[in-house]
């Protein structure tokens, strides 16, 4: 009897810790996005400044922390056999969100290693694209939080993700067109296009996750 009582108390405390972990994971995703926005801006304006490398390093730390949290959540969900009907959905969701953090980190590294030379005429457009991408992921964070607490709002928040993804596509096409219409060498054009495309892909991934969340929330409401 006492064993059962203890396991019940442990179940409730484990649940609270897991809730906290999931919230923290989503916070990291949001913060990595904001950091990425600053990194792109810093790179374009003060690329010789040491601050840029520090910021990239910070993103790496956040990515590693997110990995640790994902593993902890994964173990807890399996060991405690929690949410048996939604477990696979939640784990897949966390995996895909982790990939999103990885995409941010990858972009930072590519800026740091390849040091693309963006002429000043494209700075404003690139910053605009980055801001849209970050807004898209911010909306995704809201969608994720509503999936856990308020499934009715999932669709509304997911709609915002779709909106920003379309915005991002428009900005990507416009910037890519401007790059290829410019007088730059083809190798530089290709190099810049690679970066613009990689940033835009973050939005595609965010939209895919938002679509998944709509399905998961329908499953939960049935």
């Amino acid at each position, binding site marked *: 009897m006492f064993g*059962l009582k203890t396991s019940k108390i442990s179940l409730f405390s484990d649940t609270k810790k897991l809730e906290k972990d999931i919230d923290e994971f989503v916070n990291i995703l949001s913060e990595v996005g904001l950091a990425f926005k600053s990194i792109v801006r810093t790179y374009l304006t003060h690329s010789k400044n040491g601050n840029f490398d520090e910021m990239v390093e910070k993103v790496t730390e956040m990515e590693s922390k997110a990995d640790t949290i994902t593993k902890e959540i994964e173990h807890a969900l399996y060991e405690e056999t929690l949410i*048996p009907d939604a477990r696979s959905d939640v784990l897949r969701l966390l995996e895909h969100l982790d990939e999103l953090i990885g995409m941010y980190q990858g972009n930072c590294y590519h800026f740091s290693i390849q040091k693309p030379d963006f002429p000043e005429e494209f700075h404003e457009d690139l910053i605009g694209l980055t801001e849209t991408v970050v807004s898209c992921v911010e909306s995704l964070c809201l969608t994720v939080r509503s999936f856990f*607490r308020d499934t009715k709002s999932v669709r509304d928040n997911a709609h915002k993700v779709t909106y920003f993804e379309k915005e991002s596509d428009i900005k990507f096409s416009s910037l890519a067109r401007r790059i290829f219409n410019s007088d730059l060498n083809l190798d530089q054009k290709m190099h810049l296009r690679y970066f613009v495309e990689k940033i835009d892909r973050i939005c595609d991934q965010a939209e895919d996750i938002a679509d998944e969340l709509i399905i998961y929330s329908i499953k939960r409401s049935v």
Partner: protein
Amino acid sequence: MELTILLFLLGGLFLGWSLGANDAANVFGTAVGTRMVNFRTAAIICSIFVILGAVISGAGTTETLGKLGAINALPGAFACCVAAGFSVYLMTKSGLPVSTTQAIVGAIIGWNIFTGSSIDFGVLTTIFATWIICPILAGLISIGIYIGLKKFIAASNIHLLRLDAYTRAALLLAGAFGAYSLGANNIANVMGVFVNISPFTDINVSNFFIITSVQQLFLIGGLAIAVGVFTYSKKVMFTVGNDLLKLSPLSAFVIVLSHSIVLFLFASQGISSFLTSLNLPAIPLVPVSSSQAIVGGVIGIGFLKGGKEVKWSVAGKISVGWVVLPIITMIIAMFILYILTYMFNLNVVF
């Protein structure tokens, strides 16, 4: 206690074991089937509360069953229990959630026919009527609770993980309530036929309280049910929890709760007296079928979701089992009574 009496009582204990393996599996079937509660925890809670329900509140339904056929000889009671236990065991082996209630009623009718005793058709009609009312009532209660709970959850914005923890705790509580109700309602099936011929005497514990001979009977019956739960109920739990309809943990809780409410309603002398005091028709204290209550609850939820997900072939198979079981048990009981009377020269009636 004489060895022969103990031997005859073994028939009842065998039936108790069958009840534990099949009926008791219904109580936690949806919880274990949805993997919200592990089998060991379910078995421990189920056993404790079945015994408590049997000893504390088991008298009401026993009286009704006694009216159907007052079996007054141990060999007769033995035959009925073995027949019911054997037929329930056969059904359990084939994975069909049946009920010892239907089996024991079939066996008592077999005894009545064999011994030429009169059948109280009034009581029989009441019992048959509850077999129809019970699943319908369980279905309606589960629909009502499910709709209410869904609205509450939607309004309260509970975190998915916290909802999971609450559902788990609620499943354990509802399961304990269900096990208590099952013990109270169904102990009559296991030990009811031995009440008139109980081999025990009242035990006075330090002039503090008395354990009656009937309570002692119900206690060993409850223990037999607990053994059935531990040794053979796992398979049926998964059948109930998965085969008929893919259940969510929340549906599992609603079904266990509605099942428990129905069983409690048909076992509670308190509620029955309360309704009578208000000049309302009393709820008959009849041993109803836990399988019917559970299946009624599952189908109720299935209907609420449009009915498409219910595996009607499985539901049909279960329903056929409910009709066939009392008839088969009646035939087996008459066969055993024949053997005891004409081959062993035992009196199956006084």
